[in-house]
């Protein structure tokens, strides 16, 4: 009887570990695909088309969920990741996600990028006021400076539209915590210098 229970627990534990490892593996594979797509300039074209379509047609067209839409570089955290459209489980399992409906980095408005606290933003709490962030999105290449860092409740209304370009990074808080987190860490940054270039010259 004891051996049967032990065998059952052994198999169950193995399955759980395999599932978690498989999800991490799938996320890494999708991250590689996103990086390749971005390097092929497809992601930049997606964002350029979306921005231009929004400007010309007066309605919002966005890339489909999972499409690479930006590149996020945080030198202090040694972070260099491709941002995918959407903040659902599949996107966040692979890369940081861009909140659909928010602005794209560099364009007027609040651009919101979120990521798992145990993955890409696992050291986001180390980011301090004055640190710099670099983003590439479509035709924009921007440098940002962190101007605010706050912790809010998970149900607090913390994201707002802004008239000027703003970059907001969010993750769950506390960083070292198992299970659904009760709070959110929110980092706000403002552009240092906005340099608009064409896709062709950027690539």
């Amino acid at each position, binding site marked *: 009887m*004891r*051996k049967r*229970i*032990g*065998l059952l*627990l*052994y*198999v*169950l*534990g*193995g399955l*759980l*570990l395999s599932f*978690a*490892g498989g999800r991490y593996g799938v996320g890494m594979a999708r991250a590689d695909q996103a990086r390749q797509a971005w390097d092929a*300039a*497809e992601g930049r*074209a*997606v964002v350029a*088309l979306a921005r*231009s*379509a929004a*400007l010309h*047609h007066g*309605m*919002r*067209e*966005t*890339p*489909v969920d999972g*499409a690479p839409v930006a590149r996020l570089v945080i030198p202090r955290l040694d972070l260099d990741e491709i941002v995918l459209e959407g*903040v659902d489980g599949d996107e*966040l*399992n692979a890369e940081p996600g861009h*909140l659909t*409906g*928010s602005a794209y980095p560099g364009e007027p*408005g609040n651009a*919101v990028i*979120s*990521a*798992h606290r*145990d*993955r890409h933003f696992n050291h986001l709490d180390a980011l301090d006021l004055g640190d710099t962030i670099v983003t590439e999105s479509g035709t924009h290449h921007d440098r940002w400076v962190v101007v605010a860092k706050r912790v809010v409740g*998970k*149900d607090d*209304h*913390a*994201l*707002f*539209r802004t008239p000027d370009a703003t970059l907001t990074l*969010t*993750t*769950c808080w506390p960083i070292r915590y*198992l*299970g*659904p*987190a009760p709070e959110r860490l929110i980092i706000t940054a403002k552009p240092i210098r906005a340099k608009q270039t064409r*896709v*062709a010259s950027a690539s």
Partner: protein
Amino acid sequence: MPYRPLLVLSLIVGLPAAAAAQFTTFIPPQNKAADSVKVAVAAQKSAQADTSLNTRLTNLKTWVDSAAGVVATPRAAQDSLAVMNPAIPASDSVSMKLSDTATLRNGARAPATASDLPLLALVGAATLGLGALLLGTGGKQRMRTDA
């Protein structure tokens, strides 16, 4: 009277007359270069006339539209992009969707970014370890019973 000088004289007078008769029936070939120039000039004049006509019509239509309060339709974004940068792929190769939320909702909550994977991995490792422990102790107990 020597007839040889008379013959030479008649030839001198008669041969040019015969040659002149031939030249009267000569049809000179058309000057192709001159024709192509004429055609080009004519085409250019025609094109200029058409363009100016179109311009007048466009201006007239714009004036009528503006008088009627109709706003001219802007050029399609994809067309302008294609003009700007031919390296950008065509729209059908890019996956786009219409978003329900036009802009970020004011006062939106921060997305839930909690992942269950660390918890699952921890529980899995603990379960695996416990199972291995039970299997190991079960084997030792059997060995003692056999002894």
